[in-house]
């Protein structure tokens, strides 16, 4: 049994919140740079250049890339050999978020109730998802998620007869309907299978994967590439002003489902797709 203290979790999450918001992951900035090189439409190329400049400015000044520093989505993979000591695991995560958002001068974007809408003032609670896994490590992924793109996300409960075509058309339609709103170029997280709640989580988890890593199942890896090509023929372009670069990547996660179900969820993320991962 390995012991991990809540103090070390607080400290880790605190730092990860700041890092995630100020430094764009290499894979995402790499995709923006590659699209900048490939983009032939002048206004689109210009906009992509500005996005790269912005990433540099944020890193140099130590400030957030985007003012929407998001809901703190925290994924925990808790090894079953780990014993958490010193307090409550979830309270430690919330405390890490609280400290990180205060000390990092990050925006407090959480309201305590969806209808009465009073700001909690410290960006808590974090949205925590836990998986129990083999081993003696606690792996933490922090993915601050902005709302402009979150609001453009959709979910459908299709009958199985809709099949592969129905799923693919739904993904492309979701991007088309979103248009300029989610700050393209976007990253498209797709969940397929499970049930109503599971499929949304799959789509969110898909966004935590590197934009350069394709699904390990060749069938879905090919679908990711095909969907990215279709999306980049829509013409929406960076910021919706026209151009090739509408999406940087499509990441799909699939899982078993019911004989009567074909759930699909599309979770859209902006070009500031943030995810940092660390293990204790």
């Amino acid at each position: 049994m390995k012991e991990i203290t809540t103090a070390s979790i607080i400290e880790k999450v605190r730092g990860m919140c700041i890092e995630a918001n100020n430094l764009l992951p290499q894979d995402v900035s790499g995709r923006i740079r590659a699209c900048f090189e490939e983009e032939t439409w002048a206004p689109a190329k210009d906009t992509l250049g500005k996005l790269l400049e912005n990433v540099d400015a944020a890193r140099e000044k130590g400030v957030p890339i985007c003012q929407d520093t998001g809901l703190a989505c925290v994924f925990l993979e808790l090894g079953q050999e780990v014993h958490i000591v010193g307090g409550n695991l979830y309270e430690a995560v919330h405390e890490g978020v609280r400290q990180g958002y205060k000390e990092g001068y990050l925006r407090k974007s959480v309201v305590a109730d969806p209808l009465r809408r009073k700001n909690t003032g410290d960006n808590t609670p974090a949205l925590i998802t836990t998986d129990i896994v083999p081993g003696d490590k606690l792996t933490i992924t922090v993915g601050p998620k902005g709302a402009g793109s979150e609001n453009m996300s959709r979910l459908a409960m299709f009958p199985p007869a809709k099949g592969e075509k129905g799923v693919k058309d739904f993904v492309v339609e979701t991007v088309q309907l979103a248009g300029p709103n989610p700050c393209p170029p976007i990253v498209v997280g797709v969940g397929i299978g499970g049930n109503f709640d599971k499929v949304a989580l799959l789509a969110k988890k898909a966004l935590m994967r590197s934009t350069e890593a394709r699904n390990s199942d060749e069938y879905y890896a090919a679908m990711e590439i095909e969907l990215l090509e279709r999306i980049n023929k829509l013409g929406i372009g960076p910021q919706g002003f026209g151009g090739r670069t509408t999406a940087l990547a499509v990441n799909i996660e699939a899982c078993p489902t019911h004989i009567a179900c074909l759930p699909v969820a599309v979770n859209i993320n902006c070009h500031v797709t943030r995810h940092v991962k660390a293990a204790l």
Partner: protein
Amino acid sequence: MEIKRITAPITREAAKSLRSGDSVLLSGEIYTARDAAHGRLVELLDKGEKLPIDIKDTVIYYVGPTPAKPGEVIGSAGPTTSYRMDAYAPRLIELGMTGMIGKGKRSGEVIESMKKHGAVYLGAIGGAAALIAKCVTACELVCYEDLGSEAIRKLTVKDFPLTVVIDSLGVNLYETGVKEYLASVKN
């Protein structure tokens, strides 16, 4: 491409002279307001009370900045998605607001109001928040401090780079830009 320099507040005439697709550099004084602040402004209007800002010729920037670090004027300050202010914008345009800065689509109702009264919708680059912050030279709290990031602030900006998305004729770059690009790929 020619870049137009404009100064805020923006008169009706100046707003009407801008064309969809124009690149502009905006300097002068603008106000920040997003969801919650708009709700309060319209609530005041519903009660027949006076607004806390002079809305005539005013430009409102849809933004909720991050807190300023010590020694900085403002934190990161990119635009938020504008359609959430669509329910409120026509009321303010009627009262004299001439410009809105944001990103993303607007409703038919907002566009009709812009055409009727002469107002312009300017797009800032969504997500370019650290870069945009460099254009803000002063930031002063005006009201609704309890809203935190959503409070109304007066910003002084210098050479804030913007694109005219929808002009006072209702021409929309989100439609024309995509069409032009797609036509260029077909040929």
